[in-house]
């Protein structure tokens, strides 16, 4: 009886496995933040299922683990992260918990989006005296839409390596994305061209790539050092500078203290503009291009109103 029982159990297990096989045919992709999730879905289409770890309204520097995130990472074929130390505070322990060799650093399933991107703000001396400065450079490079081209091509290459049969689909999705990106880039540059050289204040050095791409200057921050909450003397200096140089637009993200921004803005009748670096935080921004679109429109409107 015994071998028989074992045999039927094995058969049962095999049936179960084969029953689940078609469902697992789609590549399981995990993205740390939603811009990579949105791009992965756009490039992968039906051939991938995408899970995003951080909520778009959550500070990407600090993410608290939930069970589903560890399960998703345990089963993932591919993990897309921003890199440049953005997720350094929470991704390593999640990876430890997930025990998945396919997505460890250096594995073929690991996409580090910052690879191949020219980063700004790389500190000359790699010490910690400059605050939570990322030694690798400023990790908010996806806010220069031109960098998204490098990232989608990187994602498509990794998808193709995992799913060669989908290569044609991925390539045509990349091509379609790039056509739309180029059209939008012209639109965005035109919308912000009238404000070339204008300064804006931001809470954190999030918008350095964005401003450089569109000819704005975002070099004044409410944080005295990246990651350090504003101190009164620093805020006083910022308000002084805003008055002296007539800076009247201040960008704030969902997880940054809006009250502080409003108090600073009030001193110079500046406008506080709600923006976000992640698709999904602002209604109507489910894709990456929609997100940049809304941010460009909001910044252009605010600059126009303050002219």
């Amino acid at each position, binding site marked *: 009886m015994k071998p028989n029982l074992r045999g039927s159990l094995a058969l049962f297990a095999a049936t179960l496995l084969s029953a689940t096989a078609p469902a697992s045919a789609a590549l399981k992709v995990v993205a740390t933040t939603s811009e990579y999730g949105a791009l992965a879905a756009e490039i992968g289409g039906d051939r991938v299922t995408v899970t995003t770890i951080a909520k778009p309204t959550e500070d990407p520097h600090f993410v608290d*683990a939930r069970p589903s995130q560890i*399960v998703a990472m345990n089963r993932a074929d591919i993990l897309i992260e921003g890199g440049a130390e953005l997720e350094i505070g*929470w991704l390593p322990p999640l990876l430890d918990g997930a025990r998945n060799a396919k997505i460890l650093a250096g594995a073929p399933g690991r996409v580090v989006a910052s690879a191949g991107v020219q980063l700004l703000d790389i500190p000359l001396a790699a010490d910690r005296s400059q605050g*939570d400065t990322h030694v690798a450079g400023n990790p908010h490079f996806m806010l220069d839409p031109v960098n998204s081209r490098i990232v989608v091509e990187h994602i498509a290459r990794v998808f193709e390596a995992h799913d060669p049969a989908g290569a044609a689909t991925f390539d045509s999705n990349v091509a379609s994305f790039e056509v739309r990106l180029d059209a939008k880039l012209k639109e965005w540059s035109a919308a912000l061209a009238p404000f070339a050289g204008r300064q804006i204040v931001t809470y954190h050095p999030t918008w350095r790539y964005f401003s450089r791409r569109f000819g704005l200057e975002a070099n004044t921050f409410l944080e005295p050092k990246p990651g*350090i*909450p504003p*101190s009164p003397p620093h805020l006083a200096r910022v308000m002084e500078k805003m008055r002296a140089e007539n800076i009247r637009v201040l960008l704030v993200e969902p997880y940054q203290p809006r009250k502080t921004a409003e108090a600073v803005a009030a001193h110079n009748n500046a406008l506080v503009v709600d923006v976000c670096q992640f698709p999904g935080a602002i209604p109507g921004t489910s894709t990456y291009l929609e997100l940049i679109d809304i941010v460009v429109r909001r910044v252009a409107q605010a600059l126009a109103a303050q002219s």
Partner: protein
Amino acid sequence: MDLFTLWLWPLVALIALPAILVYFGLHVVGRGIIFVDLALAQIAALGIATAVLLGAHPDHGVLPYALAIGFTLAGAALFSLTRFRHPRVPQEAIIGIIYIVAAAAATLVLSRTAAGDEEIKNLLVGNILLVSRSEVLRTLALYLAVGALHYFLRRKFHLLSFDTEEAERQGMSIRLWDFLFYATFGLVVTSFVRIAGVYLVFSYLIVPAVCGALLSSRTAARLAIGWGVALTAGVTGLLLSTQWQSMDLPTGPTIVCLFGGFLILSGATAFGRSRRASKSAS
């Protein structure tokens, strides 16, 4: 079943580690010093912040660890010195003051350093889902040592917390014993906060002890009830949050809410019992 692969070490942590917290909880509730755990954890944070100011990286090296322990011991000394026989000032007030001053001092110290506030918080406040094997084993070894000490000296510690006059009559040095109590308590609390966070440490200390106090007047029974409540709430919470995937509940808060449910259940049982007792008496 991913319970024994993905969630093995959280499960082991929730089964093995809280026992000693329940024991300390009986003392803490008996003494009426409910917030002393948070104050000690905050003092340890001040120690780590100071290490960062001195140039250490908060994540590795001996200095942060040594200063966290050193500050915890200093805090234990402070608490043992501020227990007065005829208190004009309740000790809970002093605990509150120590907590808030330690928290503010840590902010001041960190404002002089480059590390963000959040970085220290991340280090101090763990997430039970991410606990590693070595963390669980190291902490378990510490708890076994502290547990053995308290087991052999259980009569002394019991007198110290519940019958101070008798302890004095027996010639015990209250301040010295109090220091030993707070020092071991501080080590236990600080290491558990690192694994599981502030909410869980507070729940494990207070709720099982209160449930025990509601349902029995004997110390041994209270301890047994407390252990039962702690084990059930912890394991059920982990199962609910990991196996009920459509809900995707964060583990720590799920366990804390289960504790709240257990407290209501204990309260209702105690209430029903006392009504029956008064009815049969009349």
